[in-house]
């Protein structure tokens, strides 16, 4: 799923300045699952903003709402009446949902209350790890179901660099702590599968034109279009 983190409160609060009516809009799909931007989190953020505004002596109306998914037009229709009442919206959806809101209700001001960070999964409760870079050309059939594009810090395609040590990546930051070396994981799992010869194949340069390097992507499914 898509994961996101709430922006620092002060940054969000600064976005509300100059507005007398602000709607905090949650999204009850991905960002709700990662406990960042669902209806409950939208309600909490709206309350925090009201308290701060009151402390500052501002006369501002801050309410909340939520869409089932902000990234689909029909779910935005369901909250349209409420959104129309507010000149400014703080969206807590991922970057896709925020842009859908901004486009649907243009030229209304739609502002991001979260930083969208990855396509990941909860490894354990309250810990999410990146799993996919949406590179447009999946290689994990040959890499034991482990993505070297985003799980290797250097997106290497031919095995670990010299910085792999005891199964850990050379990149360690105070925020991230130790990172597993993707190629050490791949090597171990390929061996368990009896397919380690796949590590000996020299993979050619990756075709990045299928990733965001090729410009904004578009997918059309002709067979799925309405007749």
């Amino acid at each position, binding site marked *: 799923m898509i994961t996101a983190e709430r922006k620092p409160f002060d940054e969000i609060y600064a976005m509300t300045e100059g507005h007398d009516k602000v709607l905090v809009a949650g999204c009850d799909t991905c960002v709700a699952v990662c406990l960042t931007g669902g209806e409950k989190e939208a309600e909490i953020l709206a309350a925090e903003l009201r308290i701060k505004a009151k402390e500052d002596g501002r006369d501002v109306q801050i309410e909340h709402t939520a869409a089932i998914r902000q990234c689909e037009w029909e779910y935005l229709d369901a909250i349209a009446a409420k959104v129309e009442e507010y000149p400014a919206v703080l969206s807590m959806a991922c970057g896709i949902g925020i842009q859908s809101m901004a486009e649907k209700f243009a030229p209304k001001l739609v502002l991001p209350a979260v930083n969208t960070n990855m396509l990941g999964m909860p490894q354990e409760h309250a810990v999410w790890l990146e799993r996919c870079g949406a590179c447009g050309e999946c290689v994990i059939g040959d890499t034991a179901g482990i993505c070297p594009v985003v799980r290797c*810090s*250097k*997106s*290497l*395609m*031919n*095995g*670990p*660099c*010299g*910085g*792999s*040590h*005891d*199964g850990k990546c*050379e*990149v360690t*930051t105070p925020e991230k702590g130790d990172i597993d*070396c993707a190629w*050490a994981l791949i*090597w*171990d799992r390929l061996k368990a599968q009896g397919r380690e010869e796949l*590590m*000996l194949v*020299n*993979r*050619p*340069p*990756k075709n*990045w034109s299928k990733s965001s390097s090729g410009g904004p992507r578009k997918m059309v499914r002709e067979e799925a279009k309405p007749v």
Partner: protein
Amino acid sequence: MSATQYKAGSNLEKILSEGKFAVTGECGPPKSADGTVIEEKAKILKGFVDAVNITDNQTAVVRVCSMASGLQAQQNGLEAIMQMTCRDRNRLAMQADILGASILGIKNILCLTGDHMSFGNHPEAKGVHDLDAINLIKMYKDMRDEKKFQCGDDMDVAPALYIGCAENPFGDPFEFRALRLKKKVEAGADFMQTQCIFNIPKFKKWMEEVRAIGLHKEIKILAGLTPLKGVGAAKYMKNFVPGMDVPQEIVDRMASVEKGPPAQAEGKKLAVEMIKEIAEIEGVAGVHLMAVEWEVAVPEIVEMAGLLPRPAVA
């Protein structure tokens, strides 16, 4: 061997091809537009090493580029091994730069992945990593041997390159390390330099694996050594440099002597002992001395190791 049989005809290639024990050094370009640094380092090393690595934004810190510094080294009589990392350039830039380096007379190229941006002074930079080091070796080999760009387009004049790579015998998974070198040989590497060796028993074990698959006959292997200036340097490398394996007895040995000149003398003595031991290992074709910001130690070490005079090749 006639000149036409060489891939690039560099001094390094000739020495290694003739089976002579090679000595390479390393020069880090300055972190400013100071044109004197490489000149000075070249003066120190000239005549004591066969070629010198010119690092490419080493440890992800911005410095004068390896092409300009390599050219400057060569203008001062010291053959360059231009380093090229995949971190800072995409395939267009890496091909453009090698063509540029080639027309300026640079013949040795060392293909590297590069230390991650997070280690350096621009941790917010976008890492390129369009290719990996193995892709880079293959791309340069195809430019040289097939006169082809990576995309398949033809070129009129191929760059004459002696293609190098690096390998870390102390990286993990250990059992994949010799196989990774095999991939680099298959991609087209002519010579390789290892990460700094302090753990000689482990290096010997790695060389056993290398010999077991015959790689020592397919690629010229230069063993990397870093002379230690003192116990501080030993501890730093043990604890903070990625992929480094410094045994405790090395740290203890450096700690057993007084700081300053006695420690430096011990560091040089240790380096000489290591060169002599490593030179005996079957399949080692030379030594790569990485005296980081201590280039002045190299002439003495090379002399004490009995590696002077450096061979003259036609």
